[in-house]
Protein backbone atom coordinates (compact mmCIF):
# COMPACT_ATOMS: atom_id res chain seq x y z
CA UNK A 1 0.00 0.00 0.00
CA UNK A 2 2.73 2.40 1.01
CA UNK A 3 4.47 1.77 -2.28
CA UNK A 4 1.36 2.64 -4.20
CA UNK A 5 0.87 5.73 -2.16
CA UNK A 6 4.24 7.09 -3.18
CA UNK A 7 3.53 6.62 -6.86
CA UNK A 8 1.36 9.45 -8.20
CA UNK A 9 -2.14 8.38 -9.25
CA UNK A 10 -1.37 9.50 -12.76
CA UNK A 11 1.45 7.01 -13.24
CA UNK A 12 -0.57 4.23 -11.66
CA UNK A 13 -3.27 4.86 -14.21
CA UNK A 14 -0.71 5.06 -17.02
CA UNK A 15 0.96 1.72 -16.30
CA UNK A 16 -2.21 -0.04 -15.36
CA UNK A 17 -4.05 1.24 -18.45
CA UNK A 18 -1.37 0.47 -21.00
CA UNK A 19 -0.56 -2.77 -19.22
CA UNK A 20 -4.16 -3.85 -19.53
CA UNK A 21 -4.15 -2.87 -23.18
CA UNK A 22 -1.05 -4.97 -23.72
CA UNK A 23 -2.52 -7.97 -21.93
CA UNK A 24 -5.65 -7.83 -24.06
CA UNK A 25 -3.51 -7.76 -27.20
CA UNK A 26 -1.41 -10.67 -26.00
CA UNK A 27 -4.53 -12.58 -25.13
CA UNK A 28 -5.98 -12.13 -28.60
CA UNK A 29 -2.72 -12.99 -30.26
CA UNK A 30 -2.56 -16.14 -28.18
CA UNK A 31 -6.09 -17.26 -29.02
CA UNK A 32 -5.56 -16.64 -32.72
CA UNK A 33 -2.22 -18.38 -32.51
CA UNK A 34 -0.20 -15.42 -33.74
CA UNK A 35 1.83 -15.07 -30.60
CA UNK A 36 5.55 -15.15 -31.11
CA UNK A 37 8.65 -13.28 -29.99
CA UNK A 38 8.27 -10.80 -32.83
CA UNK A 39 4.78 -9.93 -31.72
CA UNK A 40 5.84 -9.53 -28.09
CA UNK A 41 8.70 -7.34 -29.18
CA UNK A 42 6.37 -5.20 -31.22
CA UNK A 43 3.78 -4.82 -28.54
CA UNK A 44 6.41 -3.77 -25.97
CA UNK A 45 7.70 -1.10 -28.31
CA UNK A 46 4.17 0.04 -28.94
CA UNK A 47 3.40 0.27 -25.22
CA UNK A 48 6.54 2.33 -24.56
CA UNK A 49 5.54 4.59 -27.40
CA UNK A 50 2.00 4.86 -26.05
CA UNK A 51 3.11 5.80 -22.57
CA UNK A 52 5.56 8.34 -23.89
CA UNK A 53 3.18 10.00 -26.31
CA UNK A 54 0.21 10.05 -23.96
CA UNK A 55 2.49 11.66 -21.41
CA UNK A 56 3.42 14.34 -23.93
CA UNK A 57 -0.31 14.69 -24.66
CA UNK A 58 -0.95 15.32 -21.00
CA UNK A 59 1.76 17.99 -20.95
CA UNK A 60 0.05 19.67 -23.89
CA UNK A 61 -3.36 19.48 -22.21
CA UNK A 62 -1.99 20.99 -19.02
CA UNK A 63 0.05 23.62 -20.84
CA UNK A 64 -3.04 24.77 -22.74
CA UNK A 65 -5.16 24.71 -19.56
CA UNK A 66 -7.67 22.63 -21.45
CA UNK A 67 -9.53 21.47 -18.34
CA UNK A 68 -10.47 24.95 -17.25
CA UNK A 69 -11.82 26.06 -20.64
CA UNK A 70 -15.53 26.27 -21.44
CA UNK A 71 -17.16 23.01 -22.41
CA UNK A 72 -17.35 23.68 -26.19
CA UNK A 73 -13.64 24.46 -26.36
CA UNK A 74 -12.91 21.41 -24.24
CA UNK A 75 -14.75 19.09 -26.62
CA UNK A 76 -13.09 20.63 -29.66
CA UNK A 77 -9.65 20.45 -28.03
CA UNK A 78 -10.32 16.91 -26.94
CA UNK A 79 -11.03 15.74 -30.50
CA UNK A 80 -8.24 17.81 -32.02
CA UNK A 81 -5.59 16.53 -29.65
CA UNK A 82 -6.77 12.94 -29.98
CA UNK A 83 -6.55 13.07 -33.79
CA UNK A 84 -3.16 14.81 -33.87
CA UNK A 85 -1.62 12.43 -31.39
CA UNK A 86 -2.98 9.32 -33.03
CA UNK A 87 -1.43 10.47 -36.32
CA UNK A 88 1.91 11.12 -34.61
CA UNK A 89 1.74 7.76 -32.87
CA UNK A 90 0.83 6.00 -36.12
CA UNK A 91 3.75 7.59 -37.95
CA UNK A 92 6.29 6.97 -35.24
CA UNK A 93 5.11 3.40 -34.83
CA UNK A 94 5.44 2.67 -38.53
CA UNK A 95 8.91 4.13 -38.92
CA UNK A 96 10.19 2.77 -35.69
CA UNK A 97 8.91 -0.69 -36.48
CA UNK A 98 10.51 -0.67 -39.89
CA UNK A 99 13.75 0.65 -38.57
CA UNK A 100 13.84 -2.03 -35.88
CA UNK A 101 12.95 -4.78 -38.31
CA UNK A 102 15.72 -3.66 -40.58
CA UNK A 103 18.17 -3.58 -37.67
CA UNK A 104 17.24 -7.04 -36.43
CA UNK A 105 17.08 -8.84 -39.72
CA UNK A 106 19.81 -6.79 -41.40
CA UNK A 107 19.15 -8.68 -44.54
CA UNK A 108 19.23 -6.94 -47.88
CA UNK A 109 15.99 -8.67 -48.81
CA UNK A 110 14.07 -6.97 -46.07
CA UNK A 111 15.38 -3.55 -46.87
CA UNK A 112 14.47 -3.98 -50.46
CA UNK A 113 10.96 -5.07 -49.67
CA UNK A 114 8.50 -2.58 -51.06
CA UNK A 115 6.38 -1.07 -48.31
CA UNK A 116 3.36 1.16 -48.81
CA UNK A 117 4.12 3.66 -46.08
CA UNK A 118 1.13 5.90 -46.36
CA UNK A 119 -1.25 2.98 -46.05
CA UNK A 120 0.57 1.64 -43.03
CA UNK A 121 0.66 5.03 -41.37
CA UNK A 122 -3.09 5.49 -41.81
CA UNK A 123 -3.83 2.01 -40.53
CA UNK A 124 -1.63 2.42 -37.50
CA UNK A 125 -3.03 5.87 -36.79
CA UNK A 126 -6.48 4.43 -36.89
CA UNK A 127 -5.53 1.85 -34.28
CA UNK A 128 -3.86 4.49 -32.16
CA UNK A 129 -6.90 6.70 -32.38
CA UNK A 130 -8.86 4.05 -30.52
CA UNK A 131 -6.32 3.94 -27.67
CA UNK A 132 -5.78 7.68 -27.51
CA UNK A 133 -9.51 8.25 -27.45
CA UNK A 134 -9.97 5.95 -24.48
CA UNK A 135 -6.96 7.48 -22.75
CA UNK A 136 -8.38 10.96 -23.15
CA UNK A 137 -11.83 9.88 -22.05
CA UNK A 138 -10.44 8.45 -18.83
CA UNK A 139 -8.28 11.52 -18.29
CA UNK A 140 -11.15 13.96 -18.75
CA UNK A 141 -13.68 11.96 -16.76
CA UNK A 142 -11.24 11.50 -13.91
CA UNK A 143 -10.62 15.24 -13.70
CA UNK A 144 -14.29 16.00 -14.08
CA UNK A 145 -15.17 13.76 -11.14
CA UNK A 146 -12.34 15.22 -9.07
CA UNK A 147 -13.52 18.72 -9.86
CA UNK A 148 -17.12 18.10 -8.87
CA UNK A 149 -15.98 16.41 -5.67
CA UNK A 150 -13.80 19.40 -4.92
CA UNK A 151 -16.75 21.65 -5.52
CA UNK A 152 -18.79 19.68 -3.02
CA UNK A 153 -16.08 20.05 -0.43
CA UNK A 154 -15.89 23.77 -1.17
CA UNK A 155 -19.63 24.18 -0.69
CA UNK A 156 -19.39 22.42 2.65
CA UNK A 157 -16.49 24.61 3.68
CA UNK A 158 -18.44 27.69 2.68
CA UNK A 159 -21.42 26.56 4.72
CA UNK A 160 -19.32 26.14 7.84
CA UNK A 161 -17.80 29.55 7.26
CA UNK A 162 -21.23 31.12 7.00
CA UNK A 163 -22.26 29.44 10.25
CA UNK A 164 -19.14 30.69 11.94
CA UNK A 165 -19.83 34.21 10.75
CA UNK A 166 -23.41 33.91 11.93
CA UNK A 167 -22.15 32.97 15.35
CA UNK A 168 -19.91 36.01 15.30
CA UNK A 169 -22.75 38.35 14.47
CA UNK A 170 -24.83 36.76 17.20
CA UNK A 171 -21.99 37.39 19.58
CA UNK A 172 -21.81 41.08 18.81
CA UNK A 173 -25.51 41.38 18.34
CA UNK A 174 -27.09 44.47 19.77
CA UNK A 175 -30.77 44.79 19.19
CA UNK A 176 -31.27 47.49 16.54
CA UNK A 177 -34.60 48.26 18.18
CA UNK A 178 -32.63 49.34 21.23
CA UNK A 179 -30.22 51.52 19.25
CA UNK A 180 -32.93 53.45 17.43
CA UNK A 181 -35.08 53.83 20.50
CA UNK A 182 -32.07 55.14 22.39
CA UNK A 183 -31.32 57.62 19.61
CA UNK A 184 -34.93 58.78 19.64
CA UNK A 185 -34.84 59.30 23.40
CA UNK A 186 -31.58 61.18 23.14
CA UNK A 187 -33.03 63.48 20.50
CA UNK A 188 -35.90 64.31 22.85
CA UNK A 189 -33.45 64.83 25.71
CA UNK A 190 -31.38 67.36 23.81
CA UNK A 191 -33.98 70.06 24.56
CA UNK A 192 -35.18 68.71 27.86
CA UNK A 193 -31.92 67.87 29.61
CA UNK A 194 -28.84 68.63 27.50
CA UNK A 195 -26.42 67.39 30.14
CA UNK A 196 -28.11 64.00 30.34
CA UNK A 197 -28.25 63.87 26.54
CA UNK A 198 -24.47 64.32 26.37
CA UNK A 199 -24.00 61.54 28.89
CA UNK A 200 -26.34 59.29 26.95
CA UNK A 201 -24.34 59.72 23.75
CA UNK A 202 -21.19 58.65 25.59
CA UNK A 203 -22.98 55.61 26.98
CA UNK A 204 -24.32 54.62 23.59
CA UNK A 205 -20.93 54.95 21.92
CA UNK A 206 -19.33 52.82 24.66
CA UNK A 207 -21.82 50.07 23.99
CA UNK A 208 -21.40 50.21 20.24
CA UNK A 209 -17.63 50.19 20.53
CA UNK A 210 -17.51 47.23 22.84
CA UNK A 211 -19.97 45.26 20.73
CA UNK A 212 -17.70 45.79 17.73
CA UNK A 213 -14.59 44.78 19.63
CA UNK A 214 -16.15 41.84 21.40
CA UNK A 215 -15.70 39.37 18.55
CA UNK A 216 -11.94 39.83 18.66
CA UNK A 217 -11.64 38.69 22.26
CA UNK A 218 -12.50 35.40 23.92
CA UNK A 219 -12.87 36.83 27.39
CA UNK A 220 -12.70 40.23 29.08
CA UNK A 221 -12.37 41.18 32.75
CA UNK A 222 -15.80 41.21 34.36
CA UNK A 223 -15.36 44.86 35.35
CA UNK A 224 -15.27 45.90 31.71
CA UNK A 225 -18.38 43.89 30.90
CA UNK A 226 -20.14 45.35 33.93
CA UNK A 227 -19.39 48.90 32.80
CA UNK A 228 -21.04 48.19 29.46
CA UNK A 229 -24.08 46.76 31.18
CA UNK A 230 -24.25 49.83 33.42
CA UNK A 231 -24.16 52.09 30.37
CA UNK A 232 -26.80 49.98 28.71
CA UNK A 233 -29.13 50.07 31.69
CA UNK A 234 -28.62 53.81 32.09
CA UNK A 235 -29.85 54.23 28.51
CA UNK A 236 -32.80 51.94 29.04
CA UNK A 237 -33.62 53.97 32.13
CA UNK A 238 -34.00 57.05 29.94
CA UNK A 239 -36.57 55.16 27.91
CA UNK A 240 -38.48 53.43 30.68
CA UNK A 241 -38.00 56.09 33.37
CA UNK A 242 -39.79 55.03 36.57
CA UNK A 243 -40.87 51.75 35.07
CA UNK A 244 -37.32 50.41 35.36
CA UNK A 245 -35.63 49.80 38.70
CA UNK A 246 -32.02 48.65 38.67
CA UNK A 247 -30.19 46.86 41.47
CA UNK A 248 -26.60 45.65 41.65
CA UNK A 249 -25.13 43.14 44.07
CA UNK A 250 -21.50 42.77 43.01
CA UNK A 251 -18.71 41.11 44.96
CA UNK A 252 -15.72 43.32 44.24
CA UNK A 253 -13.37 40.36 44.08
CA UNK A 254 -15.17 39.06 41.03
CA UNK A 255 -14.33 42.18 39.03
CA UNK A 256 -11.06 40.70 37.75
CA UNK A 257 -12.58 37.41 36.68
CA UNK A 258 -12.57 36.70 32.94
CA UNK A 259 -16.00 36.50 31.32
CA UNK A 260 -17.07 36.10 27.68
CA UNK A 261 -17.68 39.59 26.27
CA UNK A 262 -21.28 40.73 25.71
CA UNK A 263 -22.68 37.70 27.50
CA UNK A 264 -24.04 39.48 30.55
CA UNK A 265 -25.13 42.22 28.20
CA UNK A 266 -27.22 39.75 26.16
CA UNK A 267 -28.89 38.42 29.29
CA UNK A 268 -29.70 41.91 30.56
CA UNK A 269 -31.06 42.85 27.15
CA UNK A 270 -33.31 39.77 27.26
CA UNK A 271 -34.44 40.73 30.75
CA UNK A 272 -35.55 44.12 29.43
CA UNK A 273 -37.03 42.87 26.19
CA UNK A 274 -38.98 39.90 27.52
CA UNK A 275 -39.43 41.07 31.11
CA UNK A 276 -39.65 44.77 31.83
CA UNK A 277 -40.99 45.98 28.49
CA UNK A 278 -43.91 43.53 28.73
CA UNK A 279 -45.01 44.76 32.18
CA UNK A 280 -47.50 47.60 32.29
CA UNK A 281 -46.06 48.94 35.53
CA UNK A 282 -42.48 47.95 34.75
CA UNK A 283 -40.23 46.07 37.15
CA UNK A 284 -36.77 45.47 38.54
CA UNK A 285 -33.60 44.17 36.96
CA UNK A 286 -31.06 42.86 39.46
CA UNK A 287 -27.51 41.84 38.63
CA UNK A 288 -25.59 39.61 41.03
CA UNK A 289 -21.96 38.54 40.75
CA UNK A 290 -20.49 36.36 43.45
CA UNK A 291 -18.26 33.37 44.24
CA UNK A 292 -20.24 30.31 45.23
CA UNK A 293 -19.20 26.65 45.54
CA UNK A 294 -15.80 27.44 43.99
CA UNK A 295 -17.45 28.97 40.95
CA UNK A 296 -18.08 32.46 39.70
CA UNK A 297 -21.82 32.99 39.48
CA UNK A 298 -23.40 35.67 37.32
CA UNK A 299 -27.11 36.15 37.88
CA UNK A 300 -29.65 38.38 36.15
CA UNK A 301 -33.09 38.57 37.74
CA UNK A 302 -36.02 40.42 36.26
CA UNK A 303 -39.70 40.88 36.96
CA UNK A 304 -41.80 38.78 34.61
CA UNK A 305 -42.72 35.26 33.66
CA UNK A 306 -40.94 32.57 31.77
CA UNK A 307 -43.36 32.08 28.91
CA UNK A 308 -43.24 29.77 25.93
CA UNK A 309 -42.27 32.60 23.63
CA UNK A 310 -39.27 33.30 25.80
CA UNK A 311 -37.89 29.84 25.09
CA UNK A 312 -38.86 29.74 21.47
CA UNK A 313 -37.21 33.09 20.93
CA UNK A 314 -34.02 31.56 22.36
CA UNK A 315 -31.76 33.68 20.13
CA UNK A 316 -29.74 35.03 23.01
CA UNK A 317 -30.17 31.96 25.14
CA UNK A 318 -28.96 29.36 22.66
CA UNK A 319 -25.98 31.45 21.69
CA UNK A 320 -25.13 31.92 25.38
CA UNK A 321 -25.23 28.17 25.89
CA UNK A 322 -23.14 27.50 22.78
CA UNK A 323 -20.52 30.04 23.68
CA UNK A 324 -20.11 28.66 27.18
CA UNK A 325 -19.80 25.16 25.80
CA UNK A 326 -17.14 26.26 23.29
CA UNK A 327 -15.13 28.25 25.80
CA UNK A 328 -15.29 26.18 28.97
CA UNK A 329 -16.83 22.82 28.04
CA UNK A 330 -18.23 21.01 31.07
CA UNK A 331 -16.82 23.56 33.52
CA UNK A 332 -19.51 26.14 32.86
CA UNK A 333 -23.27 26.03 32.61
CA UNK A 334 -26.27 28.21 32.02
CA UNK A 335 -29.76 27.94 33.49
CA UNK A 336 -32.90 30.02 33.30
CA UNK A 337 -35.91 29.53 35.57
CA UNK A 338 -38.80 31.27 37.24
CA UNK A 339 -38.48 31.97 40.97
CA UNK A 340 -40.85 33.44 43.56
CA UNK A 341 -43.74 33.44 41.12
CA UNK A 342 -42.98 36.67 39.32
CA UNK A 343 -39.23 36.75 38.76
CA UNK A 344 -37.15 35.19 36.02
CA UNK A 345 -33.59 34.27 36.94
CA UNK A 346 -30.86 33.61 34.39
CA UNK A 347 -27.69 32.17 35.91
CA UNK A 348 -24.26 31.60 34.38
CA UNK A 349 -21.79 29.50 36.35
CA UNK A 350 -18.16 30.00 35.30
CA UNK A 351 -14.94 28.36 36.46
CA UNK A 352 -12.83 30.54 38.74
CA UNK A 353 -9.61 31.71 37.14
CA UNK A 354 -6.49 32.44 39.16
CA UNK A 355 -5.92 36.12 38.59
CA UNK A 356 -2.58 37.60 39.40
Amino acid at each position, binding site marked *: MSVFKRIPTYWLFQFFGWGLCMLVNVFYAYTFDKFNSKFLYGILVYMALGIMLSHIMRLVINKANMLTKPIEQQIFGFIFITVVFSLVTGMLETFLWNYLTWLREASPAASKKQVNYSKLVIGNSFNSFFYMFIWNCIYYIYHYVQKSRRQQVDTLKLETLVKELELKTIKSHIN*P*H*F*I*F*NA*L*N*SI*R*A*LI*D*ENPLRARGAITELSNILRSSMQSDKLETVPFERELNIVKDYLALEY*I*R*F*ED*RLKIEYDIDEDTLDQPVPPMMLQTLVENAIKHGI*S*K*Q*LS*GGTVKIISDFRYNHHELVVQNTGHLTGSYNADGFGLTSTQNRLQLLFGEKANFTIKEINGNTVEAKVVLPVAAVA
Partner: protein
Amino acid sequence: MIRAIIIDDERLARNELRKLLIDFPEIEVVAEGANANEGLEKIETINPDLVFLDIQMPGKTGFDMLAELDKAPHVIFTTAYDEYALKAFEVNALDYLLKPVEPRRLADAIQKLHIQEEKEQSANSEVNINREMLHEDDQVFVKDGERCWFVKLNEIRLFESVGNYAKVFFGPNKPLILKSLNALEERLDEKTFFRANRKHIVNLRLIDKIEPYFNGGLLLEMKGGEKIEVSRRQTVKFKEMMSL
Protein backbone atom coordinates in the same frame (compact mmCIF):
# COMPACT_ATOMS: atom_id res chain seq x y z
CA MET B 1 -58.22 70.82 12.09
CA ILE B 2 -57.14 67.21 12.54
CA ARG B 3 -57.46 65.90 16.07
CA ALA B 4 -54.69 63.45 16.84
CA ILE B 5 -53.71 61.11 19.66
CA ILE B 6 -50.20 59.84 20.34
CA ILE B 7 -49.91 56.36 21.82
CA ASP B 8 -46.41 55.32 22.86
CA ASP B 9 -45.10 53.81 26.06
CA GLU B 10 -42.14 56.21 26.27
CA ARG B 11 -42.72 59.70 27.54
CA LEU B 12 -39.71 61.05 25.68
CA ALA B 13 -40.87 59.52 22.41
CA ARG B 14 -44.29 61.16 22.82
CA ASN B 15 -42.65 64.50 23.61
CA GLU B 16 -40.41 64.22 20.59
CA LEU B 17 -43.33 63.58 18.27
CA ARG B 18 -45.32 66.45 19.78
CA LYS B 19 -42.36 68.70 19.15
CA LEU B 20 -42.15 67.62 15.52
CA LEU B 21 -45.87 68.19 15.07
CA ILE B 22 -45.56 71.85 16.05
CA ASP B 23 -44.59 72.47 12.43
CA PHE B 24 -47.99 71.18 11.32
CA PRO B 25 -50.52 73.64 12.71
CA GLU B 26 -53.41 71.73 11.14
CA ILE B 27 -52.73 68.85 13.52
CA GLU B 28 -53.74 69.23 17.12
CA VAL B 29 -52.57 66.62 19.61
CA VAL B 30 -55.57 66.27 21.90
CA ALA B 31 -54.41 63.35 24.06
CA GLU B 32 -51.65 60.86 24.78
CA GLY B 33 -51.70 57.25 25.88
CA ALA B 34 -48.86 55.27 27.49
CA ASN B 35 -50.14 51.80 26.61
CA ALA B 36 -52.77 49.98 24.59
CA ASN B 37 -55.45 50.09 27.29
CA GLU B 38 -55.08 53.83 27.76
CA GLY B 39 -55.13 54.14 24.00
CA LEU B 40 -58.38 52.21 23.62
CA GLU B 41 -60.03 54.35 26.26
CA LYS B 42 -58.87 57.63 24.66
CA ILE B 43 -59.87 56.57 21.17
CA GLU B 44 -63.34 55.55 22.27
CA THR B 45 -64.03 58.73 24.26
CA ILE B 46 -62.34 61.27 22.01
CA ASN B 47 -62.91 59.64 18.62
CA PRO B 48 -59.82 61.23 17.04
CA ASP B 49 -59.19 61.74 13.33
CA LEU B 50 -55.69 60.39 13.52
CA VAL B 51 -53.66 58.12 15.79
CA PHE B 52 -49.86 57.94 15.99
CA LEU B 53 -49.32 54.43 17.27
CA ASP B 54 -46.26 52.60 18.59
CA ILE B 55 -46.20 48.86 17.94
CA GLN B 56 -44.21 47.44 20.84
CA MET B 57 -45.87 48.38 24.09
CA PRO B 58 -46.26 46.58 27.41
CA GLY B 59 -49.34 44.40 27.70
CA LYS B 60 -50.75 44.66 24.20
CA THR B 61 -49.07 45.62 20.95
CA GLY B 62 -50.41 48.42 18.79
CA PHE B 63 -51.72 45.85 16.32
CA ASP B 64 -53.64 44.03 19.07
CA MET B 65 -55.12 47.31 20.20
CA LEU B 66 -56.40 48.20 16.72
CA ALA B 67 -57.90 44.75 16.25
CA GLU B 68 -60.06 45.37 19.33
CA LEU B 69 -61.62 48.52 17.91
CA ASP B 70 -64.92 48.25 16.07
CA LYS B 71 -63.82 50.95 13.72
CA ALA B 72 -60.22 51.78 12.97
CA PRO B 73 -59.24 55.46 12.83
CA HIS B 74 -56.55 56.74 10.46
CA VAL B 75 -53.32 55.40 11.85
CA ILE B 76 -49.67 56.28 11.31
CA PHE B 77 -47.50 53.66 12.94
CA THR B 78 -44.27 54.67 14.67
CA THR B 79 -41.62 52.12 15.52
CA ALA B 80 -37.90 52.13 16.18
CA TYR B 81 -36.94 48.92 14.44
CA ASP B 82 -39.01 45.84 14.49
CA GLU B 83 -38.53 43.29 11.74
CA TYR B 84 -41.86 41.69 12.47
CA ALA B 85 -43.74 44.95 12.19
CA LEU B 86 -41.76 46.15 9.19
CA LYS B 87 -42.78 43.01 7.33
CA ALA B 88 -46.42 43.66 8.12
CA PHE B 89 -46.01 47.23 6.85
CA GLU B 90 -44.41 46.21 3.61
CA VAL B 91 -46.94 43.52 2.87
CA ASN B 92 -49.91 45.78 3.40
CA ALA B 93 -48.51 49.20 2.58
CA LEU B 94 -49.57 50.68 5.91
CA ASP B 95 -48.20 54.08 6.66
CA TYR B 96 -45.40 54.06 9.16
CA LEU B 97 -42.63 56.26 10.52
CA LEU B 98 -39.32 55.01 11.83
CA LYS B 99 -38.06 56.52 15.07
CA PRO B 100 -36.16 58.80 15.28
CA VAL B 101 -38.70 60.35 12.92
CA GLU B 102 -37.43 62.24 9.92
CA PRO B 103 -39.42 65.50 9.59
CA ARG B 104 -39.69 65.09 5.82
CA ARG B 105 -41.20 61.61 6.15
CA LEU B 106 -43.66 63.00 8.68
CA ALA B 107 -44.68 65.70 6.21
CA ASP B 108 -45.22 63.05 3.52
CA ALA B 109 -47.39 60.94 5.79
CA ILE B 110 -49.52 63.93 6.76
CA GLN B 111 -49.83 65.01 3.13
CA LYS B 112 -51.09 61.54 2.24
CA LEU B 113 -53.62 61.77 5.01
CA HIS B 114 -54.98 65.08 3.65
CA ILE B 115 -55.52 63.56 0.23
CA GLN B 116 -57.34 60.62 1.73
CA GLU B 117 -59.56 62.83 3.88
CA GLU B 118 -60.55 64.98 0.92
CA LYS B 119 -61.47 61.92 -1.08
CA GLU B 120 -63.64 60.62 1.70
CA GLN B 121 -65.35 63.96 2.28
CA SER B 122 -66.36 64.30 -1.34
CA ALA B 123 -67.46 60.68 -1.42
CA ASN B 124 -69.79 60.83 1.53
CA SER B 125 -70.89 64.39 2.02
CA GLU B 126 -74.33 63.13 3.03
CA VAL B 127 -72.91 60.73 5.63
CA ASN B 128 -75.17 60.05 8.55
CA ILE B 129 -73.83 61.66 11.67
CA ASN B 130 -74.71 58.61 13.72
CA ARG B 131 -71.22 57.62 14.89
CA GLU B 132 -72.51 54.49 16.55
CA MET B 133 -73.31 52.88 13.26
CA LEU B 134 -70.54 51.80 10.95
CA HIS B 135 -70.66 53.38 7.55
CA GLU B 136 -69.56 51.44 4.54
CA ASP B 137 -66.61 53.79 4.01
CA ASP B 138 -65.40 53.11 7.54
CA GLN B 139 -62.43 50.84 7.89
CA VAL B 140 -61.70 48.05 10.31
CA PHE B 141 -58.31 46.75 11.28
CA VAL B 142 -57.90 43.02 10.83
CA LYS B 143 -54.96 41.02 12.09
CA ASP B 144 -54.34 37.40 11.33
CA GLY B 145 -51.05 36.00 12.57
CA GLU B 146 -48.29 37.96 10.87
CA ARG B 147 -50.52 39.75 8.43
CA CYS B 148 -52.71 42.74 9.02
CA TRP B 149 -55.00 44.90 6.93
CA PHE B 150 -57.11 48.01 7.05
CA VAL B 151 -60.30 46.94 5.32
CA LYS B 152 -63.06 49.23 4.13
CA LEU B 153 -66.44 47.75 5.01
CA ASN B 154 -67.61 47.99 1.40
CA GLU B 155 -64.83 45.56 0.43
CA ILE B 156 -66.12 42.87 2.77
CA ARG B 157 -68.33 40.29 1.08
CA LEU B 158 -69.20 38.11 3.98
CA PHE B 159 -68.94 37.52 7.71
CA GLU B 160 -69.09 33.92 8.86
CA SER B 161 -69.56 32.86 12.45
CA VAL B 162 -66.88 30.49 13.80
CA GLY B 163 -67.53 29.98 17.51
CA ASN B 164 -66.74 33.26 19.25
CA TYR B 165 -64.95 34.51 16.18
CA ALA B 166 -66.09 35.82 12.87
CA LYS B 167 -64.36 35.03 9.61
CA VAL B 168 -64.09 38.08 7.40
CA PHE B 169 -64.08 37.54 3.63
CA PHE B 170 -62.45 40.22 1.47
CA GLY B 171 -60.35 39.88 -1.65
CA PRO B 172 -58.57 36.53 -1.45
CA ASN B 173 -58.30 36.74 2.36
CA LYS B 174 -60.47 35.38 5.13
CA PRO B 175 -58.90 36.14 8.51
CA LEU B 176 -60.63 35.71 11.87
CA ILE B 177 -61.63 38.55 14.16
CA LEU B 178 -62.62 38.20 17.78
CA LYS B 179 -66.20 39.42 17.43
CA SER B 180 -69.52 37.62 17.53
CA LEU B 181 -71.84 37.80 14.57
CA ASN B 182 -74.60 39.30 16.73
CA ALA B 183 -72.36 42.11 17.93
CA LEU B 184 -71.36 42.81 14.35
CA GLU B 185 -74.94 42.82 13.14
CA GLU B 186 -75.85 45.51 15.64
CA ARG B 187 -73.14 47.84 14.37
CA LEU B 188 -73.47 47.20 10.65
CA ASP B 189 -75.71 49.21 8.37
CA GLU B 190 -78.64 46.95 7.55
CA LYS B 191 -79.09 48.59 4.17
CA THR B 192 -75.81 47.05 3.10
CA PHE B 193 -75.27 44.08 5.38
CA PHE B 194 -77.94 41.41 5.60
CA ARG B 195 -78.16 38.51 8.05
CA ALA B 196 -78.76 35.63 5.66
CA ASN B 197 -78.89 32.91 8.28
CA ARG B 198 -77.64 32.01 11.74
CA LYS B 199 -74.06 31.83 10.57
CA HIS B 200 -73.67 34.44 7.82
CA ILE B 201 -73.93 38.16 7.21
CA VAL B 202 -73.60 39.10 3.54
CA ASN B 203 -72.84 42.36 1.78
CA LEU B 204 -75.87 43.00 -0.45
CA ARG B 205 -73.78 44.94 -2.94
CA LEU B 206 -71.40 42.08 -3.52
CA ILE B 207 -73.92 39.40 -4.47
CA ASP B 208 -73.31 37.86 -7.86
CA LYS B 209 -76.31 35.55 -8.36
CA ILE B 210 -79.55 34.70 -6.59
CA GLU B 211 -81.20 31.31 -7.04
CA PRO B 212 -84.25 29.70 -5.48
CA TYR B 213 -83.46 26.96 -2.98
CA PHE B 214 -85.23 24.21 -0.99
CA ASN B 215 -88.20 25.07 1.22
CA GLY B 216 -88.72 28.43 -0.38
CA GLY B 217 -85.29 29.64 0.66
CA LEU B 218 -82.69 31.31 -1.52
CA LEU B 219 -79.11 30.56 -2.46
CA LEU B 220 -76.82 33.56 -2.89
CA GLU B 221 -73.59 33.35 -4.79
CA MET B 222 -71.15 36.02 -3.70
CA LYS B 223 -68.65 37.78 -5.98
CA GLY B 224 -65.90 35.64 -4.48
CA GLY B 225 -67.74 32.42 -5.33
CA GLU B 226 -69.00 31.62 -1.83
CA LYS B 227 -72.50 30.10 -1.80
CA ILE B 228 -74.70 31.23 1.07
CA GLU B 229 -78.09 29.85 1.91
CA VAL B 230 -80.79 32.32 3.04
CA SER B 231 -83.03 30.82 5.69
CA ARG B 232 -86.77 30.71 5.00
CA ARG B 233 -87.59 33.41 7.52
CA GLN B 234 -84.90 35.73 6.23
CA THR B 235 -85.93 35.09 2.64
CA VAL B 236 -89.20 36.91 3.27
CA LYS B 237 -87.28 39.87 4.66
CA PHE B 238 -84.78 39.72 1.82
CA LYS B 239 -87.53 39.82 -0.80
CA GLU B 240 -89.18 42.73 0.99
CA MET B 241 -85.94 44.68 0.95
CA MET B 242 -85.11 43.98 -2.65
CA SER B 243 -88.57 44.58 -4.06
CA LEU B 244 -88.78 48.22 -3.04
